[in-house]
């Protein structure tokens, strides 16, 4: 019995260690490569710690005005899309939460699942045709709106349970006090749903930050985002892994830092959303 328990413990801990290593090694490797000189990036045997670090790769990136602009674009894009998604999504989620049965519900549900399940290309091809005719290619507000719609199923599915969980008595109390529906929503419902809304906001920011297909096809030079820029590195004319790793790191590090800080919230949001989907 003792041996069995011991073995079980060893097993558990080795699985955990392997998981930890597998999850974190690629990230470590990328970040460390971003600090290596060119020769060190493809040296064999690989240099894990025995290299003299350099800031050159980052300097190269930051001295390029395009890169800074791209980074700012991405931040704008992310914040704009998260904000619009929350506004529109909260309203829709609240409507759904308070109207479990209504005409056209099935249609709405089908539309949402289709929107979530369809590969992006299916919509991007006609959207590209549409946007180029209307000269809307590369317009940030257009990109933000499109991403908002693409993320709508996620937003609605995640927020509806939070709104449904708010006891209707509180709203009725507000009604008795003579508040309008909109006031009830703003003053009573939103504050109570804030945990869910902030979790959703974080996820939406992440989803938008990571978005590739929409900005690469429907955006242009002036609205280039970080993933699009990074994708340009695949046909680097030289084995320029240093700057490649640096650009990737600049996409990775903010997410990693954010995750560590809001970890608890993310899991709450993820699981509640997922469990109640």
């Amino acid at each position: 019995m003792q041996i069995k328990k011991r073995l079980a413990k060893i097993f558990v801990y080795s699985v955990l260690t392997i998981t930890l290593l597998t999850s974190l090694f690629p990230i470590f490797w990328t970040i460390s490569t971003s600090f290596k000189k060119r020769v060190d990036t493809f040296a064999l045997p690989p240099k894990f710690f025995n290299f003299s670090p350099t800031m050159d790769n980052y300097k190269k990136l930051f001295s390029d005005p395009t890169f800074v602009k791209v980074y700012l674009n991405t931040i704008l894009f992310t914040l704009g899309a998260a904000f619009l998604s929350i506004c529109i999504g909260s309203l829709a989620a609240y409507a759904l939460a308070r109207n479990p049965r209504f005409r056209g519900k099935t249609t709405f549900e089908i539309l949402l699942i289709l929107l979530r399940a369809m590969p992006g290309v299916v919509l991007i091809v006609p959207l590209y045709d549409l946007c180029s005719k209307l000269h809307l290619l590369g317009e940030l507000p257009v990109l933000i709106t499109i991403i908002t719609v693409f993320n709508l199923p996620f937003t609605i599915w995640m927020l509806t349970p939070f709104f449904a969980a708010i006891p209707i008595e509180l709203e009725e109390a507000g009604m008795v006090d003579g508040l309008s529906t909109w006031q009830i929503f703003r003053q009573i419902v939103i504050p109570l749903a804030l945990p869910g809304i902030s979790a959703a906001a974080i996820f939406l920011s992440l989803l938008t930050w990571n978005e590739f297909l929409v900005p690469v096809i429907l955006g242009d030079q002036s609205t280039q985002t970080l993933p699009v820029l990074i994708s340009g590195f695949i046909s680097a004319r030289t084995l320029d892994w240093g700057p490649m790793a640096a650009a990737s790191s600049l996409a990775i590090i903010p997410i990693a830092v954010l995750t560590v800080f809001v970890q608890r919230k993310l899991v709450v949001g993820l699981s509640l959303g997922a469990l109640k989907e």
Partner: protein
Amino acid sequence: MRGARLASVGKSSRAPLAFSLPAWILIIPIFILPLGLGLYLSVFDKSLGFPQPINFVGLANFQSDVKNSNFYSAVKVTAQFMAIAVFIQIPIGIFLAMVLHSASKFASMFRSSLLIPMLLTPVAVALMWRFMFSSELGIINWVLDKMTLAQPDWLGSVTAAFFAVAIVDSWQSIPFVVLITLAGLAAMPVAPQEAAMIDGASTIQRIRYVTLPLLKPVLLVILLIRIIDSFKLFDIIFILTRGGPGTATQTLSMLDYNTAFTFLATSRAAAIGVVLALMSLPLYYLWKKVISVSS
């Protein structure tokens, strides 16, 4: 008092429906309109390399798709990636979740280390792995060499490339399975498990007859999301192999993209899009099942 209550309930259930209007206002031009346009384009022969006039060709694009071996190859590759998601990623994820659940002391540290791969930008992740997979200068083959194992040409060999994509996708997706299952495990009632243990059930029996059935709602959600996301897989393939070598990792999405943006054959791409949209429809039923089971 009673009457007032009834009246207010009626009131509160009507006005909020208008709250969903903004969503509709956006869905129509950005979802419904393009879908319709895609359908419309698919029955013509519009192609960027050829000027107007555009001819109505009826189902010709669909017929040529059926005859095209590329199309079938893409269906096969897509199905293969989905199979990996369902039959490999999910079981491994569940297994890891159970192991992690039993070592809940380190919960938060592991949560972070799992969350991060899941949340990272797929494009950056694929780029990261691309240079780790480099067949002569990458670290993966160096490790394999040190372990005296075969070092495949990860991105150049037809079979290895498929697995390279599968590995990168799994690296990002298994954490998702683990985290959701963990949340499900944490929310499970302890009583049935303890009862099973008292009854003398082995761990395997306990898992099979108590834990898994209780996890059913969570597992269904995971299944739905993995099926959807593996069907939609694009960014990673685009960066890692662009669908190659040849058509080894060309999924339907990648084929659609190539048809539209490499061959400039807009209408044919729209036809593939219609097929993809039709393939997404059955997922509505899976979703309905998920909803009904979890409520």
